């Protein structure tokens, strides 16, 4: 057996003692500012990110990426981790589950850096404390939505909504919630053979069966062969929160609260 050198001995002892020998520097973007990489990043963004963040990255359902502010951290390594691993509990998938290579993710980040500008003044509107009071009180949001373990189950859990929705998207989804729904929350009315109608949100479906949560928060399972009809609603179970239900100022408060989550 070969003798251990002093150097390897030192490493063994160091590891055993839990001594970090060298602080690994946080990786930085190897293609920062590289014109070709930025071009490639733009192409990747358009194909993979624009559906949620918008073609101009100003935010659709997903947040605005042009403000220079990133909730999960804005350093190169933090952005790399967010893009690669996604954000659990949100719609943000991880590039590691696609065919994306690390080089492509760095190119994407190089492109995002070219978009960064000042935070929107719109973001600063409203009062989060008032918004929280409205959420659980007058606006009755909490009857269907849960925040950190409190509230209803029929609508999506909003505990992390501030990470995943832009202010613009939230305004649209509160004022006119119908149109587009998150998976697991498509509104349906099930009509049984004897004409009974059960309203709820679709949890899953295949050609033969349907699983819903009804408006009493009960999970129910049906075979299509036992049903007369499944009505796929265009209108959300959530009412439109027009100015009669929520003034512009109150809406600003609620959104400020949601953006703080």
């Amino acid at each position, binding site marked *: 057996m070969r003798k251990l050198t002093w150097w390897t001995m030192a490493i063994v002892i160091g590891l055993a003692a839990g001594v970090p020998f060298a602080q690994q520097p946080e990786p930085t973007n190897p293609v920062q500012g590289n014109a*070709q990489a930025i*071009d*490639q990043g733009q*192409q*990747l963004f*358009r*194909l993979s990110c*624009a*559906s949620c963040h918008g*073609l101009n990255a100003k935010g659709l359902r997903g947040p605005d990426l042009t403000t220079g502010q990133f909730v999960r951290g804005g350093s190169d390594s933090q952005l790399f981790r967010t893009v690669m691993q996604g954000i659990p509990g949100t719609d943000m998938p991880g590039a590691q589950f696609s*065919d994306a*290579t690390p*080089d*492509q993710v760095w*190119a994407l980040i190089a492109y995002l850096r070219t978009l960064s500008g000042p935070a929107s003044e719109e973001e600063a509107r409203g009062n989060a404390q008032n918004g929280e009071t409205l959420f659980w009180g007058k606006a009755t949001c909490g009857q269907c939505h849960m925040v950190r373990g409190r509230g209803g189950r029929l609508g999506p859990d909003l505990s992390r909504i501030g990470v995943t929705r832009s202010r613009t998207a939230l305004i649209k989804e509160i004022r006119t919630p119908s*149109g*587009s*729904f998150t998976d697991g929350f498509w509104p349906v009315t099930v009509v049984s053979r004897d004409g009974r109608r059960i309203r709820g949100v679709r949890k*899953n*479906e*295949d*050609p*033969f069966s349907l699983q819903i949560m009804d408006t009493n928060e009960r999970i129910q399972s049906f075979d299509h062969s036992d049903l007369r009809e499944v009505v796929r609603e*265009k209108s959300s179970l959530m009412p439109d929160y027009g100015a009669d239900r929520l003034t512009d100022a109150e809406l600003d408060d609620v959104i400020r609260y949601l953006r703080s989550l």
Partner: protein
Amino acid sequence: MRHTLARTAALCIVLACAMSIGHPGVQAQQRQDSGQWTTYSGDYNAQRHSSLTQITPANVGRLAVQWIFQSGVSGRFEATPLVVDGIMYLTGPDNYAWALDARTGRQIWRYRRQLPEGLNICCGRVNRGFAINGDRLYMTTLDAHLVALDARTGNVLFDVEIDDHKKSYTATVAPLIVKDKVIVGIAGAEYGIRGFIDAFDANTGKKAWRFWTVPEPGQPGGNTWSGDSWQRGGGSTWVTGAYDPSLNLVYWGTGNPAPDSFGDARLGDNLYTDAVVALDADTGTLRWHYQFTPHDVHDWDAVQVPILADITMNGAPRKVLMTANRNGFFYTLDRANGELLRARPFVRTTWAQEIGRDGKPILLEANRIGPEGTVTCPDVGGGTNWMSPSFNPATGLFYVTTREVCAKFYAFPQQFQPGHLYWGGAVEAIPGEPGYGALRAIDPVSGLVRWEFKYPRPSMGGTLSTASGLVFAGEEDGNVMAFDAASGKNLWRLQTGAGLRSGPMTFMHNGKQYIVVASGGAVIALALQDGR
């Protein structure tokens, strides 16, 4: 029940010797009738129609799981397994491959290719299966090689480069054996490759011929590309074609031009992208072509399996080629000369009014895309895609998994850079309109849909037809299903727990007919519980 693999192996050797005489590829085609499954689509006609009749509409309700092979590999299966003499040969994600005892699902050997880092792969680290010739298996690899394996051991017999993966060439196609040649396609159009179809000597791996799907200036079709755009014009060939021994023609579908959406980078019709090409099997010489989508800007590859059949049209027998195209139209062509006999939409199409008498689509405004975006149907996934259709000569119906989805397409200028995605556009889903899927039975004479079975979600599962009058199909929510081929009535189903992305196949072993599907990372074999 006694069963020895030694007996099976001995039979393999005998058959391997027999197959070394004459044209093994032709034998491979004929052997489908003996209950084997020897090529990607079942036989050279690519009908994915089996003569086996043990499982019938009357007894399919008693179909039960015989075994499940859990591959332990992440990613999805897009392969059709082959079965020869009781051994199943299967390829999986990341160029894993296996030989299994087809009776029990137990592994005989496993192969895994060491792949280089940094491969440019647009659409999944998948593989669509082996080709077999005697005791040799052939597979293509993600780093664009053709590998021949010993069927009994999985040992590598030869390993040749199809083209350079550093130029973004990659391969996922199941090869096709024709006589003494292995025919393969290529992928990589999303990275601006120049596509081709290659033939290699089955014994030595030496290149026999290459057909470029994008011709250079001065060659026929070369004037359908502006400037030097042909050099990176796309035209991948990533799904296995068909072969007609009587005409000695290989039929193969070609993919989208590159860049996918920014058509101004490549003015012209962009031959031979989004087409079917008929090639002389011995030389690779082009005999005819038919282009489904000239100057495509929607990524509507025409790689769908072309099905060959002899049918009667207007009272006359016709040798036809049928295909349900990603662009939403179903086509019936004369396969001797490429003449268009019928074209009709099988899903909602908004880009073309119809296919004109000259064989070219009469375009609508929704075909034009630019930076402002245009909503077009079908979506980028197409009216159908690479999932295998099937054809039953008795019902005369073509069975295909269809997708009813629209999308908003954008085009933006983009400079080509080697190794970088070359799309020149974007695609957005329509909010609140996720679309749906359906299994449809199309009459190739009229082009009309005779029956359909709807799926809640657009699906990418293939179909299988059997002579007993059944159609098997898989869908995205995990069901494998059997239907009455004439009426479309659902007769049996099994929830497998993961979306089905590959084509079902069937084989006979020890008097028992099996149906095989891949679901997630597993392969499932089904049969009648009592074998009758």
